[in-house]
């Protein structure tokens, strides 16, 4: 890796694979950029003069575009020194069109938003980076959007320390039975529905539990869904789990479009 580091914590890093998650205007001509880098996790940069027509950054700092970023500095806000398209992003532009449209594009924004909410700065997640690339590619190829999102959500939870138990009843330790109904207690895992009476004494199911078919749990674990019903249940489960971890602040992408996909 192209990194030079000295004792003061000053970094100079070259040509790192990265995607931009969000940009905001800063002063008159600059941008503050939140990016997901392959090797350093989520980082924040200032791109000085990026809004000027002749800036070397002009037109490059776009979301959903594979980039190679270089930066220097230390602390929470690095200075972006260079941004380049990769061969694959150049190919996208050569074809003269944005591959991401409509509900696909909204789903991509949703991925960015949950990454911004779940990832803390300077916390490397190289595996998750490639899951993200994979999700963007699958979305742009118009694979089943909902399924791509559910798989990504599961991986995101896994990588950020909130893994879901999907393969066994956490009371009995028995493997999940595809045909049984389970009560999924958020933060814990699936209880087979026979334990319902005992559970109702210690939790309010509307608040922190959700009912799912064993088949849904197994398909979510495997990452492929066989029908609308399991997909729908997986969405309800994931929504509840994500809401639990994100707290009161709702996701903007979801509120804005009230899409059934997210």
């Amino acid at each position, binding site marked *: 890796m192209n990194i030079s580091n000295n004792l003061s914590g000053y970094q100079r890093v070259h040509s790192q694979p990265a995607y931009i998650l969000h940009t905001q205007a800063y002063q008159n001509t600059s941008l503050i950029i939140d990016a997901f880098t392959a090797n350093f996790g989520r980082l924040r940069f200032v791109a000085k003069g990026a809004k000027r027509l002749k800036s070397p950054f*002009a037109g490059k700092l776009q979301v959903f575009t594979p980039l190679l970023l270089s930066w220097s500095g230390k602390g929470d806000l690095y200075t972006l020194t260079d941004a380049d398209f990769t061969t694959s992003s150049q190919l996208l532009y050569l074809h003269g069109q944005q591959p991401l449209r409509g509900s696909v594009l909204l789903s991509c924004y949703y991925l*960015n938003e949950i990454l911004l909410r779940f990832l803390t700065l300077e916390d490397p997640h190289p595996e998750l980076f490639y899951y993200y690339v994979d999700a963007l590619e699958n979305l742009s190829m118009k694979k089943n959007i909902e399924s791509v999102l559910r798989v990504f959500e599961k991986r995101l939870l896994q990588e950020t320390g909130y893994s879901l138990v999907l393969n066994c009843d956490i009371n009995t330790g028995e493997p999940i039975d595809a045909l049984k109904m389970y009560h999924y207690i958020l933060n814990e895992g699936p209880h087979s529905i026979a334990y319902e009476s005992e559970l109702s004494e210690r939790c309010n199911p509307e608040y922190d539990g959700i009912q799912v078919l064993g088949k849904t749990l197994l398909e979510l674990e495997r990452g492929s869904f066989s029908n609308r019903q399991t997909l729908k249940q997986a969405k309800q489960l994931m929504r509840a789990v994500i809401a639990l971890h994100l707290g009161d602040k709702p996701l903007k992408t979801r509120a*804005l479009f009230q899409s059934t996909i997210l």
Partner: protein
Amino acid sequence: MSYSPLIGQLISALKRLPGVGQKSAQRMAFYLLQHDKQAAMQISQSLASAIEQVGECSKCRVLSESELCEVCNNPKRSQQQVCIVESPSDVQAFEQSTHYSGRYFVLMGHLSPLDGIGPHEIGLDIFASQLDAGDITEVILATNPTVEGEATAHYISEMTKKRNIKTTRIAHGVPIGGELEYVNGSTLSHALDGRSIVSVD
């Protein structure tokens, strides 16, 4: 260095202008107060009356001091053809360098989901009711060729498709990632001529 309260106030007010920092604000304040009080008075008066009287054109949302702006009120311009742009400066760019003879609708931004800017925030509910009113026959999408601009164009094209209204997108000649405001006149003119039908899938 500290100024008397009124001068300090003036300097911090001037600093709110784009591109004006402490030094320029200070220079402007001293210039106006020491050398050209007449200009200062003129600025203050025209600013006050502009703030009071200028609002948005009820049809296209550009700044206007009458209910309808000049373009929307001009009988020589087609009110059936609507060009959708992100900002008033894009309208200026079109007016200065193309032969466009329809009217505009200004979004004052673009969809930006992560900033909570959705269809309502860029006036698309107003635009939807204009489409429903039925006298618009062609919509030209001239949002910036950025990811957000494309997302916005796509959203609008879904609105127009539902209502069976001819929709075109300027494309040819405008560099990806560029902002229309900065594109030179001939490029923009070319882009307008080469616009293509938007297909929604």
